[in-house]
C-alpha cells in the first residue's frame, strides 16, 4: 500500500452542490409495494432518510461548475491563480474529452492550466487530494482546483431495490494550495483489482457496447431488475472487502504516521451506509460520536462527494473557525481505498447547497 506524507499543503475552501430533487421514503413505497415493513427495515439498515437527485439532463459537470461558481461568489477562489484542475468522476459528460477540459472551457481558465480527470468513485476524494498534494509539492503548481462527484442515481435501474434507496447525485469543489502553515498530511492508498466485478457497470463502454443485449432487463433471484448498462453491486462482497481492508489500512496509517487515535476528533468515512459505518467503528474501537453520519441520513450516498459533504454539512461551522484533526477515508469501486490522516482547516468557506438551473 502506498503511503505518503506531505507538509505545507492546505484545503482553503469547499463547496458541495447536490441534486435538487428530494426523495424520501414515500417515493420508494412503490418499489416495496406490499412490503412497507421491508422498506422500513432497509431504511433503518442503511440510515438514509433523504436523497437528492439531479434532474435528467443535469450532469456531474453541471453540479461541479455550480460548486466552483459558488466559491467564486463567496469570494474565496481566484481563478487566475489556479494552475491545475483535477476532476474525479465516473459519470463524465463524454468518454472524450474529459470533464476537466470541459470545465476549463466553461470557466475560461488560462491555457497554462493543466487539467485531467480521475476515474475513481467512493475513494476518489482522497485520491484527488493525494494527487493535488503531489502537484503542489513537486509538480510546479501553487493552487489546484479539485472536483469530485457523480450522478450515480442515473446509473441505477428504477426497479433495483438494493441500490435505489442508497444513492444521490452531488459534486464537490475545493481549493487546495501550498501553504507554509499547512499541517502534515499522511496518506494511505490501495487497490484490489481482483474484486473489480463487485461494483461494476458491465456495458456501455468499450468492452460491451450499449444497446441490444446490454439493454435487456433481467431479474435476479431477489426480484431486482437491472440491465448490463446499470450499476451492479454485490453487497456482501463489498461489505467483506470493506471490513477486510479498511480497519487494517486505517490502523496501519495511524501507526505509520505516529498518530494517537484518541487525539483524532472525527473519523470521516465515505457515507456508504449506516451498517458499514457502525461495523467500521466497532472494528476500530472508536465511538460512533466520532463518526459523522448525519450527512448520510440527510443526503444519502454521494459517491466521491460524500467526504467533502461531511466536511461542509457536519463539520463546516467548526472548520470555518479552526483546524480539525481527522481521518478521512473512502472505499469502494475498483476495488480501492484511500485514507488521509491530518488536520483540515481552518477553511475560509464551507457549504453545501442544491443545484439551481436558473
Amino acid at each position: 500500500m502506498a503511503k505518503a506524507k506531505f507538509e505545507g499543503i492546505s484545503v482553503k475552501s469547499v463547496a458541495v452542490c447536490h441534486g435538487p430533487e428530494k426523495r424520501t421514503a414515500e417515493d420508494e413505497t412503490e418499489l416495496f409495494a406490499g412490503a412497507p415493513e421491508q422498506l422500513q427495515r432497509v431504511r433503518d439498515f442503511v440510515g438514509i432518510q433523504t436523497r437528492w437527485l439531479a434532474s435528467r439532463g443535469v450532469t456531474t459537470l453541471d453540479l461541479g461548475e455550480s460548486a466552483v461558481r459558488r466559491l467564486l461568489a463567496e469570494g474565496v477562489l481566484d481563478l487566475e491563480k489556479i494552475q491545475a484542475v483535477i476532476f474525479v468522476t465516473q459519470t463524465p459528460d463524454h468518454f472524450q474529452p474529459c470533464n476537466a477540459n470541459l470545465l476549463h472551457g466553461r470557466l475560461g481558465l488560462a491555457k497554462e492550466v493543466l487539467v485531467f480527470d480521475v476515474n475513481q468513485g467512493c475513494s476518489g476524494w482522497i485520491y484527488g487530494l493525494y494527487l493535488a498534494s503531489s502537484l503542489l509539492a513537486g509538480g510546479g503548481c501553487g493552487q489546484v482546483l479539485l472536483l469530485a462527484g457523480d450522478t450515480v442515481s442515473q446509473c441505477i435501474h428504477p426497479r433495483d431495490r438494493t441500490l435505489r434507496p442508497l444513492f444521490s447525485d452531488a459534486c464537490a469543489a475545493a481549493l487546495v494550495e501550498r501553504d507554509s502553515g499547512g499541517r502534515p498530511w499522511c496518506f494511505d492508498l490501495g487497490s484490489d483489482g481482483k474484486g473489480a466485478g463487485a461494483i461494476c457497470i458491465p456495458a456501455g463502454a468499450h468492452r460491451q457496447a450499449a444497446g441490444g443485449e446490454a439493454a435487456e432487463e433481467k431479474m435476479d433471484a431477489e426480484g431486482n431488475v437491472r440491465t448490463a448498462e446499470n450499476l451492479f453491486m454485490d453487497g456482501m462482497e463489498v461489505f467483506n472487502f470493506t471490513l477486510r481492508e479498511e480497519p487494517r489500512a486505517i490502523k496501519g496509517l495511524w501507526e505509520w504516521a505516529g498518530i494517537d487515535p484518541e487525539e483524532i476528533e472525527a473519523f470521516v468515512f465515505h457515507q456508504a451506509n449506516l451498517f458499514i459505518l457502525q461495523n467500521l467503528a466497532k472494528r476500530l474501537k472508536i465511538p460512533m460520536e466520532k463518526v459523522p453520519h448525519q450527512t448520510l441520513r440527510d443526503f444519502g450516498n454521494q459517491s466521491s462527494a460524500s467526504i467533502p459533504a461531511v466536511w461542509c454539512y457536519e463539520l463546516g461551522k467548526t472548520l470555518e473557525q479552526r483546524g480539525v484533526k481527522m481521518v478521512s477515508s473512502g472505499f469502494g469501486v475498483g476495488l480501492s481505498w484511500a485514507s488521509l490522516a491530518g488536520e483540515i482547516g481552518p477553511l475560509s468557506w464551507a457549504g453545501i447547497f442544491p443545484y439551481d438551473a436558473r
Partner: protein
Amino acid sequence: MTDKGTKFMRELEETLDILQEDTLTPETRFRDLPGWDSLASLTTLSVFDEVYSHQVSGEELKKCETIGDLLSLAPEEKGE
C-alpha cells in the same frame, strides 16, 4: 461446537430484529427463518466476522442450509 458457536447464535439473535432470544440452534435452517433476506445475510456475515475474526463470502453463506453448516466454516470449529 465451541463456546464461540453459542456466542455467535446469541449475538445474531440480539442483532437481527427478525429473531427471538434463544431460538437458534445448529439445526436451524436459514430459509425457515421468517423475513430472512439479504439484510439478514449481511448481518450474519458481520456477526460471524466479529465472533470468529473470519470472513465468509456471500457464495459460501448461500451454500449453507443450517446454522451448523455456517459454524463449520470457522477454522476454530473444524478442530472439534
